């Protein structure tokens, strides 16, 4: 603990002057302990309208059946599975930040893991609603579970990837929830000990009686590490299994072994984009610039370039393999994808996922909040089109030219999708109001070693290499929450 200083070359994870432990608590609990501001209400009302649209569209689907969607007998899977895969993919970044970055000891995860995990949970909820709403007879949803039954003990088909998917998604959801909630306990206790009256009673129940004694903290860290260890292969397995929904079929364009790694990279890509979309707004509206710094934003952008490039390589590999396989059906599927009637969707995907993220190689763009925010939305649009292209263009022209068809969404298709975004934002905005959006305890850990003020002290002490200090001060240029004048004085 004591006597250990981080290298001055590392950029600070907490900026600002005179930050104390109490200050961290006050800053992070500000939205939880006070009435929401106008920005929150505007966002919440819009999100709630979206959620209402979702309720209407899903109820309409339940009442009139799947026929209210634009599916036909050639394209039997379209916006529903596109939306499902899109949401599951978005969820992946939360687990990546909370688990994989914990295993790699990336301390910058500490201030973004809480909201990213919340995002995971809400995204998986949105995905799960698609699973139920596309069933046709949603009241029989429990048939996907391997339950004893009255049909001569007929079991679910354990050989089917759709059954694997049910196991994967439900395990993923419940393990993410456990991980998230266990991490929340110390912070809920913080709210509890500052609250009075009814609020205190509610947070007392939610805090499970947390006190923060030595043994509980020590076990807490052990539990976090083991959960991170098991969540890492879990998150990779989930999107692998999602990709198997397609890859185990015999449809040209789906039947490829590249799908699992390609889907996992795409999931992380879209997930980080969604984290940025949410956090860039949240840090501004909630005034968390000192905790979610430019370093965090830049690091996430770097992950987006990496995963975006992996996705780009996967697109090209698919094309190469289609040609190299010598299978004319496979070749036609890919020629049709890029030049057929859905060419615009294909090129939309290529532009948004492969070309535009390459702009992030420029430091100016990577460290610009406006540019990053726009690019993160572009990536999410691109990733939606990726799933649409894979699903619809592979199906719409099958082996029999007489049954070739196009897919046209109905208002119900569109409303279920737009509505699910509303549901997601409603849940996320409620989360910001009732629970701390940053892991308070974990950020406090960084205060003495990785904050700007502790590094300032070290510089003032003057036992550091001059060149390294100069490099450090230069690296602070990009931070919008750091005042350079302070350093000019030293």
């Amino acid at each position, binding site marked *: 603990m004591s006597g250990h200083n981080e290298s001055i070359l590392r950029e600070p994870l907490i900026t600002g002057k005179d930050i*104390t432990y109490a200050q961290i608590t006050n800053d992070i609990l500000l939205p939880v302990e006070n009435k929401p501001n106008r920005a929150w209400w505007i966002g919440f009302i819009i999100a709630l309208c979206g959620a209402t649209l979702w309720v209407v569209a899903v109820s309409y689907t339940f009442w009139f059946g799947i026929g209210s969607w634009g599916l036909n007998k050639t394209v039997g899977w379209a916006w529903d599975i596109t939306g499902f895969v899109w949401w599951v993919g978005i969820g992946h970044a939360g687990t990546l930040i909370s688990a994989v970055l914990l295993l790699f000891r990336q301390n910058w995860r500490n201030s973004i893991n809480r909201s990213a995990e919340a995002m995971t949970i809400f995204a998986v909820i949105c995905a799960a609603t698609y699973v139920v709403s596309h069933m046709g007879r949603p009241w029989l949803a429990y048939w996907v579970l391997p339950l004893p039954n009255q049909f001569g*003990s007929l079991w679910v088909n354990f050989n089917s990837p759709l059954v*694997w998917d049910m196991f994967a998604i439900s395990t993923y959801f419940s393990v993410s929830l456990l991980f998230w909630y266990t991490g929340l306990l110390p912070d809920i206790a913080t709210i509890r*000990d500052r609250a009075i009256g009814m609020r205190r009673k509610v947070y007392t129940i939610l805090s*499970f009686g947390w006190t*923060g004694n*030595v043994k509980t903290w020590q076990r807490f860290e052990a539990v976090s590490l083991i959960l991170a260890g098991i969540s890492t292969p879990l998150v990779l397995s989930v999107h692998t299994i999602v990709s198997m929904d397609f890859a185990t079929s015999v449809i040209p364009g789906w039947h490829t072994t590249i799908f699992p790694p390609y889907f996992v990279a795409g999931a992380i890509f879209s997930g980080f984009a969604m984290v940025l979309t949410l956090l860039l707004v949240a840090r501004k509206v909630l005034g968390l610039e000192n905790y979610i710094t430019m370093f965090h934003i830049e690091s996430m952008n770097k992950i987006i370039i990496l995963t975006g490039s992996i996705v780009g390589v996967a697109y090209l590999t698919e094309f190469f393999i289609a040609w190299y396989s010598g299978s004319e059906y496979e070749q036609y599927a890919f020629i049709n994808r890029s030049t057929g009637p859905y060419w615009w969707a294909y090129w939309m995907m290529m532009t948004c996922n492969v070309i535009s993220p390459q702009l992030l190689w420029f430091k100016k763009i990577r460290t610009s909040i406006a540019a990053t925010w726009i690019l993160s939305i572009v990536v999410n649009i691109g990733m939606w089109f990726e799933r649409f292209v894979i699903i619809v263009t592979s199906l719409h022209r099958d082996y029999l030219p007489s049954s070739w068809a196009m897919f046209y969404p109905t208002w119900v298709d569109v409303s279920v999708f737009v509505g699910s975004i509303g549901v997601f934002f409603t849940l996320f905005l409620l989360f910001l109001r009732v629970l701390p959006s940053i892991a308070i305890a974990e950020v406090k850990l960084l205060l003495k070693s990785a904050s700007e003020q502790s590094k300032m002290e070290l510089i003032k002490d003057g036992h550091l290499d001059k060149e390294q200090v100069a490099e450090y001060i230069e690296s602070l240029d990009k931070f919008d929450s750091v005042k350079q004048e302070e350093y000019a004085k030293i």
Partner: protein
Amino acid sequence: MSNIKYILGSFGDPDEMMHGIEKLQENNIKIHDVYTPMPIHGIEAKLGVKRSRLDIAAFFFGITGTITMLTGVYLATVVDWPINIGGKTHFALPDFIPITFELTILFCAFGLVGSYYASTHLFPGRAPRVMDLRATDDRFIIAIDAKQNTEHTKIDELLKGAGALEVKHNERKYVSYE
């Protein structure tokens, strides 16, 4: 004899608190417990908290999940309702690897977190046994049983000397009870 039950040393800095623990231990004063707003590394060795065995428990919970799934699938696909799919073996192991993996993780996670909650007495609605309300905010609290350690002035001096911002003599053990 006074009615003081617990003496609390309230520190504003984790390093000073660690220093306080050392001072108390040098003088053979037993520490009841320490409450902090964040995990403090190295404290468990000082206070003699044993290594967690949760990792071992997690492994066995995981293995239980593996065995449960494989047994369940075997009973369903071989014993109870065998289906002939192109003459292939009923127990098609490669097909069952993904679900076996998922159930391993599921059992491991629930078993692990359940054991953690049980061993540290965490459950919904448990009355929090809080000695100082600021221990979850910005104070690092060393609690000393005042009945066992009777040299109160010496304890006060040691805590103050180590940098305690405040020393409290509490007549009640837990302040969170109304």
